[in-house]
């Protein structure tokens, strides 16, 4: 849809965390694998609660997982 301004580093972070699979991350944060796929593709901006849960799963602050702005500039 091209209007999501919330980007993320989930894909990169999964690989840095023992090559965690999308399903493993989904189980950890309580969503379906398809939602992780949508997040990584930039097709969905998560709720604040889910964003915090994902950041918590990687033991990182929110701003190191998610960023606000045009993807091409980051």
């Amino acid at each position, binding site marked *: *849809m091209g209007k999501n301004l919330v980007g993320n580093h989930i894909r990169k972070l999964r690989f840095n965390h023992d090559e965690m699979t999308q399903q493993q991350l989904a189980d950890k944060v309580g*969503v*379906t694998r*398809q*939602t992780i796929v*949508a997040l990584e593709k*930039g097709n*969905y901006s998560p709720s604040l609660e889910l964003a915090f849960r994902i950041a918590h799963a990687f033991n990182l602050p929110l701003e190191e997982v998610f960023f606000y702005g045009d993807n091409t500039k980051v």
Partner: protein
Amino acid sequence: MTYQEKKSIVSLISATLIFVSYCLYMYPQYPEEGLESIETFRYLGSFVLILTLVSIVAHIIISIIFNIVFRITTREKEPKFADELDKLIELKAFRNSFFVFILGFLIAMGSLIIYQPLQVMFIILIISGFISDVTGSITKFYHYRRGV
């Protein structure tokens, strides 16, 4: 293609097949009495009621078959719950579906204002019910494919 995308397509195809095959089955039974006869209204009433029941049962059976085929072909389990993305898409699909049905309802009422036979109103209502179902499935597919 994800589970939800495939499910939306299956839902769309099954809704169309059920509606078309049911119409083809019921059409020859259309009463030959006058347009406003009680028998015609009984026919239209039973058409809507039976279609609703048949549609629910058929959707459940098709959903079970789809899940079995999905598990066998992809060796992946279907999601056991609906998360926030699913709920958001469900809401958008419901909104669009409801909008289409209400539009059909208003057109059906409009047909009465311009002195159309009561059968026309029934047919518009039945068709708008079908189109609203299709709209819901297409909306789900679109949002799962293109994002929210």
